[in-house]
């Protein structure tokens, strides 16, 4: 009984620690500036759209949103395609060559972006890919290859070999085997990996910050960072930005949560 009570207290307590900061964002975003200074926490007396309207008027929010969408969609799709092909190649090749290739990609798992931000930045600059969305996609896809190859080849290894062999006997080439057997069989796992990659790319800060210098090319997180320069400690404005930038992901999460959760499990198990 005591244990039950402790459990309920703990669970509700932590639920509050999660919800209160999020509610605070919403409350602050809908307060007028004078009210914010009078009453920085707590419910707004009258819900005001002042900051929301101002944000969309002063900032090309739709543009940022579109940039984020383009970069994320292109990166995740290309990543699945390239990593899927490599993973399929690894399980089909077999033997020494396959182990070597796998090790080459797995070694990249040890090198986080924080370590190679300098040389990658220099490389991108020497290629003239700075301040370009496609340049960012190229970098993001490459940086995520070790993780994706690791996850996808780990999963494809569990596919029953007999099915692929049966397809082979029926005369299917490698491309057909991959497109019509290996990938469809991996579909639920691919969905989880996509959700996992989506979160990483949509929220990515380091390379977008280094590469996207022009306002017209900024993704949402980078635009937010830049707001701090413009609005300094104008918290209602900053938190309106946070709210607008976070809403799409929260909605997506509510709709597709089991993929996000499966993706986390898959991603963490890489270790």
């Amino acid at each position, binding site marked *: 009984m005591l244990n039950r009570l402790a*459990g309920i207290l*703990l669970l509700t307590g*932590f*639920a509050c620690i*999660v919800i209160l900061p999020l509610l*605070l964002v919403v409350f602050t975003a809908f307060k007028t500036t004078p009210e914010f200074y009078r009453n920085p*926490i707590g419910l707004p007396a009258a819900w005001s759209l002042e900051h929301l309207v101002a944000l969309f008027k002063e900032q090309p929010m739709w543009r940022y949103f579109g940039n984020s969408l383009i970069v994320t969609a292109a990166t995740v799709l290309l990543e699945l395609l*390239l990593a899927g*092909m*490599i993973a399929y*190649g690894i399980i*089909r*090749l077999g033997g020494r060559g396959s182990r070597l*290739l796998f090790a080459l990609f797995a070694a*990249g798992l040890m*090198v*986080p972006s*924080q*370590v*190679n*931000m*300098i*040389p*990658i*930045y*220099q*490389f991108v600059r020497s290629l003239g890919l700075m301040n370009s969305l496609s340049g960012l996609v*190229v970098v993001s896809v*490459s*940086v995520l*290859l*070790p993780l994706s190859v690791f996850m996808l080849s780990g999963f494809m290894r569990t596919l029953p070999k007999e099915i692929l062999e049966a397809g082979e006997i029926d005369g299917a*080439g*490698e*491309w057909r085997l*991959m497109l019509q057997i290996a990938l469809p069989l991996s579909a639920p796992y691919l969905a989880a990996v996509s959700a996992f990659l989506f*979160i990483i790319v*949509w*929220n990515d*800060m*380091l390379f977008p910050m280094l590469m996207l210098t022009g306002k017209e090319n900024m993704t*949402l*997180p980078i635009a*937010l*960072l830049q707001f*701090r320069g413009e609005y300094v*400690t104008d*918290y209602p404005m*900053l*938190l309106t*930005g946070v709210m607008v930038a976070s809403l799409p*992901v*929260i909605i997506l*999460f509510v709709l597709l949560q089991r993929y996000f*959760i499966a993706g*986390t*499990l898959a991603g*963490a*198990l890489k*270790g």
Partner: protein
Amino acid sequence: MRRRRPLILFFLPGLVLYLAVFVYPTLSGLYYSFTDWDGLSPSHRFVGLDNYLRLAEHIVFQKALVNNLKFMAAVVFCQTILSLVLALYLQRSTHVNAALRSLYFIPAILSSVSVGFIWTFIYDPSFGMLNNLLESAGLSSWSRNWLGDAGIAIYAVAGVQAWAHIGQMVILFVAGLQAIPADLLESAKLDGGTRWQVFRHVTWPLLAPAAALVVSYTTIQSFKAFDLVFTMTGGGPNYSTEILSTFIYGTAFSSFKFGFAAAASCVFLLLIAVITFLQFKALRTERVTY
């Protein structure tokens, strides 16, 4: 052999990209670490081990190293214990439990810039929710400038890092708990074990692989942290939250000492390799089966 030919085409595009945009720059970083390059001028000098020797004596670098360890220890401790305890109460798959697990997960899907802004606001000494709540609870002596106090700023950020990732770790622990055969727990209870005894002698040994996974994931994740520190404190006040990644960033992109920053990156990588290796060794020795 003929069958294998098309397989090369499966590797080729990804491999070329990986070698060009990931492997080559990483290796060139190793090369830069032996030069005095400023990142802009066309030429640079080879300076041998100079950068590394200077790093060993660099006070801010040493401070960053210590801060990295402090940050890592605080995050691993809070995040692991809290997520384990929460998972123990959430392991049964009821509707309420599933809803709570999803709720706890939400901070993990927000961008670190958003999380950083939210908590900078909460920690704000004059408008922040934290000081406001402490004052209403009659604890005004506890209120302070959370991110401006050199003694606690790093722990204040570590708390936010844990806040953002506990939900993910709960998921990992719940998966580990659900993998424990129910009849084992049942028979331990029938044998008259107390709740603690059952946990200590049955649940915990079987949960060890999941716990090891959470700890190793969190260790690396917190050791390479960057986003939150960069957004919330930028390394300040007085370098009290400077960690290796922000040190590298500042050295390269504010002071334009690319060679020097590249050397710091190589040390950073070496440390990550050492941590990974130690974990690998530790993980191999503890596996229990019943």
